[in-house]
């Protein structure tokens, strides 16, 4: 359970808290727990894209639920990261339609280029390469997700350019 040992600085800013309150307001009185997943997204986005135990406990406290209820949810859904990830997480779709159109080759290429294996992060903490299941862009294969956005009809050249743009800080994640 090595990931439990990572710690992170927790900072629920006023702006974040306001957003959390807005999300909570979408559900009836007494149904605060319903806001859990949207709240976790916001909190994760504001904390380097991952959720430590401490942060999950904080979310539990905000939503008046038990910590285990948060752990159960965080570990169920693939978009929540339980340990630190690269600043730029390149999530390659590996499912059928992308695989048919060279999605696997493209991921191999990216891994080789960055010197990592799937699931790993570069030593400088800049990039993670992850294989994920169908992202609903089958007609625009092969594709990858970076932050909130999809990058479709990918080629090796586009990968090169994207990585370069990331390095130069030209890519918006949200």
């Amino acid at each position, binding site marked *: 359970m090595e990931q439990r040992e990572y710690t992170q600085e927790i900072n629920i800013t006023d702006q974040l808290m306001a957003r959390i309150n807005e999300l909570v307001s979408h559900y009836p009185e007494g149904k605060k727990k319903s806001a859990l997943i949207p709240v*976790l997204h916001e909190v994760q986005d504001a904390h380097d894209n991952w959720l430590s135990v401490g942060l999950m406990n904080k979310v539990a406290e905000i939503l008046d639920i038990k910590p285990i209820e948060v752990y159960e*949810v965080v570990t169920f*859904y693939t978009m929540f990261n339980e340990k630190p990830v690269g600043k730029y997480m390149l999530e390659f779709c590996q499912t059928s339609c992308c695989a048919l*159109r060279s999605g696997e080759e493209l991921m191999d290429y990216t891994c080789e280029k960055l010197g990592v294996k799937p699931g790993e992060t570069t030593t400088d903490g800049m990039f993670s390469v992850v294989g994920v299941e*169908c992202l*609903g862009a*089958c007609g625009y294969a092969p594709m990858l997700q970076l932050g909130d956005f999809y990058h479709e009809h990918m080629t090796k050249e586009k990968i090169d350019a994207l990585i370069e743009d990331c390095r130069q800080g030209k890519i918006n994640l949200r």
Partner: protein
Amino acid sequence: MGRKILLENINIPGIKDYEVYRKNGGYTAVEKALKSMTPDEITEQVKTSGMRGRGGAGFPMGMKWSFIDKKSGKPRHLVVNADESEPGTFKDRYLMEHIPHLLIEGAIISSFALEANLSYIYIRGEYMWVYNILEKAIKEAYANGWLGKNILGTGYNLDLHVHCGAGAYVCGEETALIESLEGKRGNPRMKPPFPAVSGLWAEPTVVNNVESISTVPWIINNSGEEYAKIGVGRSTGTKLISASGHIKNPGVYEIELGMTVDEFMNSDEYCGGMMDDRPLKALVPGGSSVPILPVHYIFKTANGEDRLMTYESLADGGFVTGSSLGSGGFIVYNDTACIVRNTWNFTRFYHHESCGQCSPCREGTGWMEKILYRIENGMGTMDDIDLLWDIQSQIDGNTICPLGDAAAWPVAAAIRHFREEFEYHVRFPQKIKNRDHFVSEPMEKVRHLLK
């Protein structure tokens, strides 16, 4: 040109924005419905339209609405299922991204028909930019009086919110979706009770697909009867098809149900024929869950009739020689595609997405993936093929939710129609070492080795 209902206005510049949408006839259906129709009349129109749920199961939508419990007096909810995750399907995203107000308009009318005052759109977490589009559109709808208290002075109140998931295919199953909306793990519930009686927060709930709800404004504007005139038999109306794989023009298309598969596949208006003009090998017509069809059952049914893009025609022959329209995920394979690899890929997907509640799915999907991985990598035996068949047959129908069936069917169909490829993998491991082995040596060229 086929008739367009959902994508009629899709090419109008700026249709994403409220003003443009409104100027082009947007929200007139809400006015008509709220001011001149009763909830039951709306449900009646939807029933008359014969519209079948576009999420995959094809259950008549009007019928589903009529099951909602209005007697208990509990608050009711509409939940729009935008958790589109079926491999091969990407139509809902296209609609929401390009014409979000159509969905919101449909959701308002549908909520009114269900007498729901609090409704949600549940969107998969990966579609975060679409989430933002919807959130903005909802704000616009509130600002213009289409949502909130006393809409159009009719006394009808409706709050509509968008809620995001976080990466779980199983949440496309309606009860898992409801659990997820309650802030829990996406474990499907036992049925009964059905959501129409006890859904979100144990209150009566109807869950409908994005495409289905987006069709409602047209039905209100033009009547259910008009809608029912489109299509063939019990497959009424138009359907969005997500086309992908080895075709010239992948993308989302709206077709009138009843078009031949041949026309859809080969006409330049749609798929445009095969990519690189390589021969067609197989087709998955309705998303990864439905049985794959070999080339001889794609354009003709086993009886020699033209195969049509309808619920009935695609299912003709049952699972032996037919398939299903499912959610309209049309995946085309040419002769370079390896069916074994593709089946392993699908099974890996279902293994990854199983919620883990019930034993046949939790254990069976992982087992099948391991066996398929071995066969695909030249470490399989002939017994493995029969074992796979046996495992899938014991998952099929024995699980809590349809994910088990969805995991079983592709395996069954692949073995049924492409057994020779499995045998080839078992008998000639050196030939299938590379994942693109069929590129240089398609099955046609090596089939003689099996004799």
